[in-house]
């Protein structure tokens, strides 16, 4: 039972780490602001999501699990809002560097 939980954790956190890595590479390599935003939000949304999913089997109680999920939800909300605001600024200023 404990082995199954550990396998889930290793798999989830590894997939999450992969998305963070991919998002960082995208942030450094993509040509303009909008595509960089796309890379960045993938790291936050999917990367953190998989890390949380991987950590859920390790949380001792329902309360800790809910705390982990709400951290992910808040990060989703913040990431979505900030990228919308940055994208709007880019569109208004007319320069997509």
């Amino acid at each position: 039972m404990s082995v199954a939980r550990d396998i889930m954790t290793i798999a989830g956190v590894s997939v999450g780490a992969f998305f963070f890595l991919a998002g960082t590479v995208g942030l450094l390599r993509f040509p303009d602001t909008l595509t960089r935003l796309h890379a960045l939000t993938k790291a936050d949304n999917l990367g953190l999501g998989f890390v949380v999913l991987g950590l859920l089997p390790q949380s001792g109680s329902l309360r800790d699990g809910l705390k982990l999920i709400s951290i992910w939800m808040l990060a989703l909300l913040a990431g979505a809002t900030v990228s919308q605001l940055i994208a709007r600024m880019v569109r208004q200023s007319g320069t997509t560097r």
Partner: protein
Amino acid sequence: MNIATVFEIVLASVVLGLAIWTIAVAETYSATVGFVAYSLLVALIWVRLDAVDVALTEAAIGGGLGGVVLLGAAARLRDAEALTVEQASPIVRMSAAILSASITAALAFAILLLPDPAPTLAPTVVANAGATGMTNPVTNVLMAFRGMDTMLEKVVLLLAIVGVWSLASDRAWGGRPGPRHQADPNGVLAFLARLLPPAGIVVGVYILWTGADHPGGAFQGGAVLASMWLLVIMAGLADTPPVSSRWLRLILVAGPGLFLAIGLGGLWLGPAFLSYPAAFAKPLILGIEVAMILTIAATLGLLLAGAPERSSQ
């Protein structure tokens, strides 16, 4: 060498590298962004040192609210920087470098000279945790064993806000701080400013409440409440209150005022200044913390809002 040690070495090198980059980079804006990232990484170091209370404060103040203050300053300096091209003379720069390096060397030397094991009061603090009915040793030190320091710290916050307000022009005195923020009322920022504060207020109050037995407390909770207030102001949903407002000034002095009153009560009814009667220690401390979280949230919010700029009408 296990994986935790490797992580710590990587973390320390990244923090040092980022610190040097923040000093060396030419643009003020880049330096500010570097400093915010630096603060968040320093918070991770505090977590590794098991100082979660300090980590929370570092992330909230250094990374969050301090970052906003610095970003605002960088935005104000941007126009002035384009005009000033003059550089300090090589002698001044060299002396500054030598001064900084010798201070760093002296600090490093002092740390190496510390006795090992370091003298500590931690066991005494843990042994006397029962005296207040709270189990978080940091809260015990801040609110009871060294309550005087915390009280004076709150007075310093009050002085800081007086200092910021005194930068107002005569015409704007008593008016509202900062510009009136305009945002699309149906836009994404206004949406966030409606959605997030209920959750943020619960988190802020929870951090205060859990501070009795777990990492947390009035300062960290107050920083969360302040950021919620600022979010609502920046989204244009509410205006900053005029600094002449009576209820605002009442909130600003509530924390240190109640602290002082209870401290004097200890002098009058008990053995010493700030001595709590054992039976009422926890309720008294909680009362002070509730007044303090309001004071801290209002003070931090107003420090970021800046000096009064507009008349109150």
